């Protein structure tokens, strides 16, 4: 017994020894991003490599705020990401539910279409989508255009469909025999049981919206409608690039997500691997 546990410990040490440098390599840019955000405007270009933070974070932030209205942009980002996550989770889980639980005419076609959209690169879609939303519908510079067009998420639909099909359908039949309405079966049995999957999907969708750059950049040209990443991007001007501001903004956008991810890590992993082992 003892030899086994010591062998196990040795394996653990070896594993950590291998992972540690990898973790360092991964963390290093993040650390440098933080360091740069605290240096004075020109510090980033100093000849020595500076590895320790300085004290200019607040100054950089004030610069960023006055250049871009960063607080407003972040507020919009939060609003958009929250609304997007909520609506998209609702849509994808309803779609996944109906594909998992009901037989209906044309189901195969619907599934094939959803799968088909996965093979289209986003960059093929984005221009026609832009033309349709901005020119044909005239919806540019609206919150609606920020939130609604990207809502449909085929991967999410397939993920939720898979989640619901893995559940024992006798549960739903039992409720049907008891006279529970279909939407209540979905709401009170299907969804609660899918909680790990919904949690994982929510995190993914939230990050997806939070990090989205191309679509908000295209659809909203007014500074007052910028999301945070677009606001940061606007600092890269033709003649002047405000690195201190960009790094400060990047820290402000990354830090909450890191905290969120670490806090919800368990849900995330559980949801992704749910159903992998039966």
């Amino acid at each position, binding site marked *: 017994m003892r030899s086994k546990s010591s062998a196990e410990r040795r394996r653990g040490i070896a594993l950590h020894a291998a992972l540690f440098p990898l973790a360092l390599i991964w963390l290093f840019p993040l650390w440098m991003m933080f360091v740069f955000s605290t240096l004075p405007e020109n510090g980033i270009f100093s000849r020595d490599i500076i590895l320790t933070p300085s004290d200019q974070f607040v100054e950089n932030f004030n610069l960023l705020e006055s250049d871009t209205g960063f607080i407003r942009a972040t507020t919009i980002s939060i609003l958009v990401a929250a609304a997007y996550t909520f609506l998209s989770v609702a849509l994808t889980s309803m779609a996944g539910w109906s594909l998992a639980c009901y037989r209906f005419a044309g189901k195969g076609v619907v599934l094939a279409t959803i799968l088909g959209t996965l093979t289209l690169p986003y960059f093929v879609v984005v221009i026609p989508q832009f033309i349709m939303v901005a020119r044909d519908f005239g919806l540019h510079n609206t919150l609606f255009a920020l939130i609604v067009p990207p809502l449909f998420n085929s991967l999410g639909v397939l993920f939720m469909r898979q989640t619901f099909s893995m559940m024992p359908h006798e549960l739903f039949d039992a409720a049907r*025999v*008891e006279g529970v309405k279909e939407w209540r079966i979905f709401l009170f049995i299907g969804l609660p049981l899918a909680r790990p999957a919904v949690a994982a999907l929510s995190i993914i969708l939230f990050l997806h919206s939070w990090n989205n750059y191309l679509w908000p950049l295209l659809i909203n040209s007014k500074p007052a409608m910028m999301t945070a990443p677009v606001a940061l991007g606007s600092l890269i001007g033709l003649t002047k690039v405000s690195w201190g501001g960009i790094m400060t903004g990047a820290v402000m956008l990354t830090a909450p997500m890191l905290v969120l991810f670490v806090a919800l890590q368990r849900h995330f992993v559980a949801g992704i691997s749910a159903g992998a082992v039966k």
Partner: protein
Amino acid sequence: MAAVSLNNVVKKFGTMSVVHGASLEVADGEFVVFVGPSGCGKSTLLRMIAGLEDISAGEIVIGGRVVNDVEPAERGIAMVFQSYALYPHMTVEQNLSFGLRMNGNDKADTQRRVSRAADILRISELMHRRPRQLSGGQRQRVAIGRAIVRNPQVFLFDEPLSNLDAELRVQMRVEIARLHKELGVTMIYVTHDQTEAMTLADKIVVLRAGNIEQIGRPLDLYDDPNNQFVAGFVGSPRMNFMAGTVVENSSSVVTVKLANQGGALLRKPLGGPLPAIGAAVVLGVRPEHFGLAGRGDSDITVKVDVAEHLGSTSYVYANAGGGEELVIEREESRHEASLDRMTVSLRATHTYLFDSAGLRLR
């Protein structure tokens, strides 16, 4: 309380026909058991009665009302599933009351029905546990309790005991019999355990590949099966079948020559039309119907392979040097344990004759 009748019920999944015209009468308060091998359509038939599968053709009547297009909840039925189908995220109490709450049932009434069901099934102490904190037998009780709170006219059970171990199964079987007596409602029960079928049923329906093979009281099916399938399915250990040919037929008596038992001859009187000479037939003998040598109408000598001694009886597995393996029940054979050959007798009145299509020749 309600009678149930099926008139020529057909079920097709796409183009594949799974139930081919089943007709059945279940009287009010009767306990009917569907038995049959796996995949024969028992669950499908039950789910059609419940309204969980639609009916491709035919008619289902519950309590005098055609329910083909009636929602499951309005059919006056409750169903207990093989997997229990308890809602894992709810406590026992919530599981029991869920359906009533969702349908806006009066709170006090819900409470009353839930505690009545809990009393009947003796699960009152478990009300605040989750399903995963219950044993198999307790889960089964909760599943039955969830059916009871609905006050159904017809209970449907789909293999409710198949996930339990042997001891618990016997206990729950008795419990279900008690429940039937107490509630006096119609019950339709699916199983492929023929002991459950024999002990619980007022009436057994034997199914095979989507057809009803025979309907009858348990002992009627045992004593008087209509065909080889039913004969083999009802009874445990199952009936022995021996191949033979007709060598003589005259004045209501056929003489059958057994192919694999040293050409033993058995004269068997038949009431119906006699099979032709040379026709292949199958002779069925239940394990307990082999007699002592010389005491019957014909003797066969067999080689003993294994003997299982269960105390009061023994089962001897034997064959006559090739051919069918026979199971012979003996009460005295613990004293013959060392024998490697034994002679047993057949009595014509305790045998069953089937034609080559498996139909009974009476």
